[in-house]
């Protein structure tokens, strides 16, 4: 039988340029990633362990991968010192090197690709990596994601000022690099996570002027609170930040008491500080998994949107595991790295194994209602703000513009003569979707890739729709999950057969035939269309 050739303009038969094949790729060299890498190597697997940290100073300035908020001390510019500090602050990195593992620091994973119902072109699991010089692709039989956590952003007037940083970012700067600029901090949030962060920051030499909590009561561990109080930290419940004051950076936090209705009252005070730490929520870093089509779901006991996992830390994508914070964040796990390490051990035991005896521990019921808690923060701080500010800093979109689904200001659109098309109008057509609102307002579409505003926008939509956070779909992540200069793409060569057949569109002659030349009948055998095919 004569088998017809495949469409030369399709991906069929166009190989990718793969830099290396490995048994196991581990993304992230924190406690879970290190345990996974070391454990997999001990089982005889060839392991590549990558971690994007320490990222260059300029990248930190771009809020990648965390909300550093320009809180870096000048010493963070010294790349060698940062690298040394990063290695020194985690003894198991040296252990991984000694175990013969290919450890690459300063190497980010920006994409994960797996075949599925709408993709059959990949030779297997493929990951896109980049160091400072180049991008490259590697193929892995197994991928263990240990990508860690990220902070929920929380806006207020002045939150774009240098010195307003995410808790995870501040903690990394202070405890891993000794490079946190601000010395006197106000911490927002009082969960056990937030209080532990405050204590660790204090331990690292910062002074914690106050812990600010919008709720009537502290939500976290009382012993941690007592320890902070003993150290002279003020505990201000039913308070929010009205403004981060200061000229070139944070010089004071203007605080207001919330009234009975939860609205900021006129009772205000200024508290001198040079840093405001956002610790109202942390969320698992699921960007690679979500962009690859992996299943995620809002799981309050895991800190928000988190991978859907089986008892062996398997995601729904074959041979892709998630371990550590990116698999779910809860207080006990934060306190005791053994829990994350046990997840990693569990994933390693499941590699190429049929019968598995080890299972990881499951999160306890959440200590508080994280949906209600985060919504309350956004209501008090963002919705009730006394002045408009940019919730999406990259694209300069305010909360009002998000809720009113306003076209971006650069369009200068005045002509809404027919209807008020606000979120309420969209709600009439179905539950709110942050991706839809993003496309109309541009909130979350900037170079920080929504790392600072994603959770806030979701909260605003939830408040607007009077729904819990779990009802708001996740604004989708896309590769590259780290911004990549166009020039960096040159380092991955293209297959010659792909270059030869590259076309702007489908490369079908008949498609572009001018209508006055189209024959009355079309059959494959009778198709005589030739000539230019590029869509013009």
């Amino acid at each position, binding site marked *: 039988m004569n088998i017809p050739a495949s469409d030369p303009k399709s991906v069929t038969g166009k190989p990718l340029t793969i830099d290396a094949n490995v048994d196991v790729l581990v993304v992230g060299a924190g406690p879970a990633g290190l345990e996974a890498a070391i454990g997999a190597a001990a089982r005889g697997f060839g392991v590549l362990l990558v971690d994007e940290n320490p990222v260059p100073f300029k990248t930190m300035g771009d809020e990648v991968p965390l909300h550093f908020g320009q809180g870096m001390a000048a010493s963070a510019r010294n790349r060698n010192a940062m690298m040394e500090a990063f290695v020194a602050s985690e003894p198991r990195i040296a252990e991984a090197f000694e175990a013969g593992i290919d450890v690459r620091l300063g190497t980010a994973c920006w994409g994960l690709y797996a075949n599925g119902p709408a993709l059959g072109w990949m030779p297997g699991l493929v990951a896109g990596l980049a160091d400072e010089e180049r991008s490259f692709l590697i193929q892995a039989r197994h991928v263990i994601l240990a990508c860690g956590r990220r902070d929920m952003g929380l806006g207020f007037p002045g939150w774009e000022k240098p010195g307003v940083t995410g808790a995870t970012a501040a903690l990394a700067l202070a405890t891993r690099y000794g490079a946190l600029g601000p010395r006197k901090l106000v911490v927002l949030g009082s969960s056990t996570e937030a209080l532990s962060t405050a204590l660790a920051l204090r331990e690292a030499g910062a002074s914690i002027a106050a812990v600010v909590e919008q709720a009537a009561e502290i939500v976290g561990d009382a012993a941690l609170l007592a320890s902070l109080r003993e150290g002279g930290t003020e505990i201000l419940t039913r308070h929010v930040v009205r403004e981060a004051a200061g000229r070139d950076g944070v010089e004071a936090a203007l605080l207001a008491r919330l009234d009975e209705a939860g609205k900021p009252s006129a009772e205000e005070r200024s508290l001198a500080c040079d840093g405001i730490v956002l610790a109202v929520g942390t969320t698992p870093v699921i960007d690679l998994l979500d962009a690859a089509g992996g299943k995620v779901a809002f799981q309050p006991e895991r800190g928000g949107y988190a991978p859907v996992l089986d008892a062996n830390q398997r995601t729904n994508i074959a041979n892709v595991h998630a371990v550590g914070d990116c698999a779910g964040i809860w207080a006990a796990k934060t306190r005791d790295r053994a829990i994350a390490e046990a997840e990693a051990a569990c994933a390693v035991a499941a590699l190429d194994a049929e019968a598995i005896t080890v299972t990881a521990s499951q999160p306890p019921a959440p200590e508080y209602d994280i949906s209600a808690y985060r919504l309350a923060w956004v209501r008090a701080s963002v919705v009730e703000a006394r002045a408009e500010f940019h919730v999406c800093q990259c694209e300069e979109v305010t909360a009002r513009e998000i809720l009113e689904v306003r076209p971006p200001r650069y369009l200068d659109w005045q002509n809404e003569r027919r209807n008020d098309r606000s979120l309420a*109008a969209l709600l009439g057509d*179905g539950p709110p979707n942050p991706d839809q609102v993003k496309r109309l307002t541009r909130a979350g579409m900037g170079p920080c890739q929504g790392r600072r505003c994603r959770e806030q926008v979701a909260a605003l939509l939830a408040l607007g729709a009077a729904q819990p956070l779990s009802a708001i779909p996740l604004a989708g992540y896309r590769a*590259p999950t780290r911004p990549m200069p166009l020039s960096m793409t040159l380092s991955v060569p293209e297959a010659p057969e792909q270059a030869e057949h590259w076309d702007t569109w489908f490369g079908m002659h008949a498609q572009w035939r001018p209508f006055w030349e189209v024959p009355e009948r079309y059959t494959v055998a009778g198709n005589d269309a030739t000539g230019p095919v590029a869509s*013009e």
Partner: protein
Amino acid sequence: MMNEIKGASVVIVGGGVTGLSAGWWLARDGVDVLVLEKGLIGWEASGRNGGGCSHHHSPLFAEEQRLWPILDDMLGYPTEFRGERIRLASSEHQMALYGRALRNAERQGFQSEVLDVRQAKEMVPLAGDTIVGGYHYKFGGHANPHRTLQGYAWAMQDHGGRLLQHTTVTGFRSEGGRVTAVETDRGVIGCDSLVLAAGPQTGRLSALLGQEVPVQSARCEMIVTEPLPLMPLGGVDGCGLYGRQTLRGNLAYGGGPHEWLALAEQGTPAKPTTPLMLHMGKRLAELLPKAAHARIIRSWAGVIENTPDGRPVIDRLDSQANVVVATLSSVGFGLSPASGHAIRDLVVDGECGFADISSFKLSRFAALEPNWRELQGWQVTAAAEVLAA
């Protein structure tokens, strides 16, 4: 809401640009119209394209060109339309290839200019020494797909048209050779006329009506960079890429190989991207070398259907007299103001009153080989079972 909707005069299946534009054209004529969408409007290819509005090979071209400059006013919502395009050539071969646009358009009364290297660089500040020349098409342009989509939907609703999202069509009821109702997962909706504009699903749904529109789905990809200073004219193509600089300044570009797909029966298909992003990025850096420092911040994919010859079908079915089927065969966004108008004409007047769309007739496939997909090499490699449960 569903309880209140028993039927509409015209039910349109598919809330993409084609269906929504048709809905808007019908609603502004006072027709009682209802658009059904399985997910969110514009969630498939309609919201994932390059935003180009310059289709000189199409019988709808003249109407496309007439409507875009006035569409913001007609809709009452912004589309971000900007007129005219530039195509840069990095070789004499490309220069010759791109000349066809000029000739096609000239025949229909639209002008272009040939640019030498100096002129091309002046008009495209991000271009570099890689180009040998280009064309300045004094027609066409580009718009923002998301905003246009929403504009159609809102404008349709302003005129009394209705939209039902998250509603999947499961079948049809017909009587005496006419469709009388649409069965959905949320109830049965009666209709006097039906328009099928369901993108990749058009094939499967038309088969249910006894006359299949032959289509095959494929996945295509695009990339977008961070914003850059605005060039005088945003619609700049070349180097094997199509796309635009958005009014915000981002470079949004696509091109390159596609992957043929078997479409799942229902639901929203997954739209994964691939490392093709890199090869689009490389070409974009070649097309606009002064943008090489710009960072890619997203990529995305869309699933889109093609007919065997890649050309649209806008026609009435023989099997059911009151059904109009419409697929724009992977080139639908730019033509949407005109395709909606044509669909309105077919539904209301029985024929298109402003253009000869006989080349969109379904009858051209009457002698099509049953194994046309295989014969054209449109093989599917993705297997649904790859994803573990």
